C-alpha cells in the first residue's frame, strides 16, 4: 500500500541519484574554474565521437560489466565483495599461467582454457574470505579488503621474481604466443570503422553472455531463489531449509569467477601478457556499477557503459583541458557510489512522500464525498 510504483524504484531513483552525482561533479569542475558544459562535450565526443572512442569505451565497459556483475551477484546474498580488485588480479595470473605453460594451436582452445583458469584462480581467491565468513563469522568486507592487498603483494612478487623475462627490467611476463590472439573488433567489425589498434575484442560478447547467465541464475533457478532469500533474511532462509554456508560459498565463488573473467579482456585480449596493476581499479568501479545498476544485469550493462564512457572521455579530457586532471573520473565515480549507495535514502524518502501524496489525492478524488 505505502509503496511507490516499481518503475520509480528501478528507474526513477537511480536516475535522480546519477543526475545529482553528475551535477555535483559539474559543480566541482566549475569551482576549479573550468566550464562543465565544455568538459561534458569533450567527454561525450571523446567517448562516442569516433570508432576509436567507441572501441575504448566498449573495452572499458567490458571490464566493468564483469566486475559489476561480480559485486551484483554478491549483493543479492547481501554480501559486500570489495575484493574484486584482488580476485581479478588472480584471474590474470591464471590466464598468464595457462597461456604461457601450453603451446596452444588455436585461440578458441586457448580461450576456453584461459577462461577456466581465470575463473578457477579468482574463485579460489574469493573462497577463502567466503569460508571465513561462513564458518568463522569474519566480516567479509574486511577480509576481502585484506585479500586485495595480499593479492597485490603476491602479484608484485611473482612478476618480479618468477614470471619476469630474464634480462628485462620491466615487471611483466613474457608475451603470449601469437596463436592465442583473440579476434579484435577490427577482425569481426572492421566494417564499422574499428582499426587494428582497438583494444575491443570478442570478450565483450562473453560479458553479455555472462549478463544473460547471471539473470537466469538469479531469477530463474532454484539456487538464485535461495541466494535472494538468503539476502532478504538469513533467519527466514535457514528456517526454510537453506544452508547458509552453501549459499555464501557458492555466491562468492560465482562472484570471484566473474571478477576473474575481466582478465580475459585485459590480459589475454589487450595486453597479451601479464603486467603489473592491470586491473587499474576496475574491481572498485564494479561497486559503483552494481549500485547504480540496482544489481540487475540490464542496469549493470547501462552503468558499465556510462563508466566506460567516463574512462575513455576522461582520457580525452586530459588532452583537451589539461587543467582538469584525469582523476576527475575518480571523483565522479565516488559521487555515483555516494548518491546511489550511501545517500540512497536522501533521494528515496522525498520521492516516496511524493508518490504517497499523489496516491492520497487520487484516492480522495475516487472516494464519494461523505458530506454530500
Amino acid at each position, binding site marked *: 500500500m505505502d509503496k511507490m510504483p516499481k518503475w520509480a524504484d528501478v528507474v526513477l531513483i537511480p536516475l535522480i541519484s546519477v543526475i545529482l552525482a553528475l551535477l555535483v561533479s559539474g559543480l566541482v569542475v566549475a569551482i576549479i574554474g573550468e566550464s562543465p558544459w565544455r568538459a561534458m562535450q569533450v567527454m561525450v565526443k571523446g567517448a562516442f565521437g569516433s570508432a576509436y572512442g567507441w572501441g575504448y569505451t566498449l573495452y572499458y565497459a567490458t571490464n566493468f560489466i564483469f566486475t559489476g556483475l561480480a559485486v551484483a551477484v554478491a549483493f543479492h546474498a547481501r554480501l559486500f565483495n570489495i575484493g574484486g580488485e584482488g580476485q581479478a588480479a588472480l584471474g590474470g595470473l591464471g590466464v598468464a599461467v595457462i597461456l604461457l605453460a601450453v603451446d596452444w594451436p588455436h585461440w578458441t582452445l586457448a580461450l576456453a582454457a584461459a577462461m577456466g583458469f581465470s575463473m578457477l584462480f579468482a574463485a579460489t581467491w574469493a573462497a577463502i574470505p567466503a569460508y571465513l565468513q561462513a564458518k568463522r563469522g569474519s566480516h567479509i568486507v574486511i577480509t576481502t579488503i*585484506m585479500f586485495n592487498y595480499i593479492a597485490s603483494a603476491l602479484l*608484485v612478487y611473482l612478476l618480479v621474481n618468477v614470471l619476469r623475462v630474464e634480462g628485462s627490467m620491466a615487471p611483466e611476463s613474457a608475451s603470449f604466443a601469437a596463436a592465442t590472439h583473440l579476434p579484435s573488433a577490427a577482425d569481426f567489425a572492421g566494417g564499422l570503422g574499428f582499426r587494428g589498434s582497438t583494444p575491443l575484442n570478442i570478450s565483450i560478447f562473453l560479458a553479455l553472455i555472462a549478463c544473460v547467465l547471471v539473470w537466469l541464475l538469479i531469477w530463474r533457478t532454484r539456487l538464485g531463489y535461495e541466494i535472494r532469500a538468503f539476502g532478504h533474511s538469513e533467519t527466514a532462509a535457514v528456517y526454510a531449509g537453506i544452508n547458509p554456508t552453501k549459499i555464501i560459498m557458492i555466491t562468492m565463488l560465482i562472484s570471484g569467477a566473474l571478477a576473474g573473467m575481466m582478465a580475459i579482456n585485459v590480459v589475454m585480449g589487450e595486453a597479451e601478457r601479464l603486467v603489473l596493476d592491470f586491473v587499474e581499479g576496475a574491481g572498485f568501479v564494479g561497486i559503483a556499477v552494481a549500485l547504480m545498476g540496482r544489481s540487475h544485469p540490464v542496469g549493470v550493462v547501462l552503468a558499465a557503459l556510462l563508466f566506460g564512457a567516463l574512462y575513455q572521455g576522461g582520457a580525452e579530457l586530459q588532452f583537451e583541458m589539461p*587543467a582538469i586532471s584525469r582523476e576527475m573520473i575518480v571523483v565522479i565515480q565516488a559521487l555515483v557510489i555516494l548518491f546511489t549507495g*550511501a545517500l540512497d535514502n536522501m533521494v528515496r524518502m522525498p520521492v516516496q512522500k511524493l508518490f504517497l501524496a499523489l496516491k492520497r489525492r487520487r484516492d480522495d478524488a475516487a472516494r464519494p464525498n461523505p458530506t454530500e
Partner: protein
Amino acid sequence: MDFLTILQILDSTVRLATPLLLACLAGLWSERAGIFDIGLEGKMLIAAFFAAAIAYTSGLVWVGLLAGIAASIVLALLHGLASITFRGNQLISGVAINFLAAGLAVVIAQTWFAQGGRTPQLSSDARFANIELPGAATRIRDIAQQGPLGQTYSELISGHSILVYLALACVPLTWWLLYRTRFGLRLRAVGENPAAVDTAGISVVGLRFAAVLIAGVLCGIAGAYLSTALSSGFVKDMSAGRGFIALAALIFAKWRPWYALSACLLFGFFDAVGNRYQNIQLGEFIVPVQFMQALPYILVVIVLAGLVGKAIPPRAGGEPYVKER
C-alpha cells in the same frame, strides 16, 4: 646487528607507527559508537593534501594542520550524514569517501599547483620540525659514543616531531575518556545497544556524530603528519593503504586503546624492517620484501579467522539506529 642499528629500526618504527596509531584511534572512536569506518584512508589522504597545500601557501605548518583537520572533518560529517542521518550503508559510504578523497586531492592539487597532482616541496619552516629533548645528542657521531641508555634516549625517545608525542598521548587520553568518563560509557553503550541509551533519554544521533567528529580530527592529524612531518609535501595516493592497515590494527587490537598502540607499533615495525632490508635471509629461506608488506594483512586474516583469540566487534556496529521500531 649492533645496538644502535636496532635503535634506528625502532626509531623508524615509531615514526611509521604514528599515522597508523592516529588513524587506528579514529577508527576505535567511530566503531565503538557503532559506526563502521572504512573511510579512514580517504580522510587521511584529504587531510594530507590540505595540510601540505595550506602549509605551503601560508608558510605556517600549524595553519596547515588545522586545514587538514578541517578537510578531514568535512568528510567525517559526510559519513555521518550518510550513515547516521540518512541511515545509509556505512561501508558503501566509506568506499565513496575513499574515492572522493583520492580524486579530489589530485584534481585540486593539479588546479592549484599544476605539478601533476602533487604539492610543491615544503621548506623546513612549513614542516613539523623534530623536537630535540634536553640533553639529547643530535649528531650520529655523538650518539655512537654514548652508552646504551644515552643512545636509547637520543635516538629513540628524542628527535621526533610533536605530532608523534601527541599521538602517543592520545592513547591514555582515549582510554581515560572511553573508560573513565560518563561520555565514554554512553559512547560505548551506543555501539553495543543504542536502544538502551535512547531509553535513558540520551541522544543516539548526537553521540554518534560526536564519535564521527573525533574520528575526523584524529584522521586529520594523521594525514597532516604524513605530508608535513613524515615527508615534505603531498603526492598522489600517499596514504598508501595506511588507513586499511590502521583498520587491521584496530581489529588486531580488538577495539581497545592500549592494544591498538601495540598493534600499530608491530605493523610500524614490519614497515620499518621492510624499508631497511629489501629481502631478509633466514637460514636457507629468503623472506621477500613483498611478504613483509603483506604481513599485516595476513595477520589480520589469521586473527579474524579466530585462530588467535576471537575479535568481537561492538554489537551494534554497522547498523543504523531506527528510533521507532
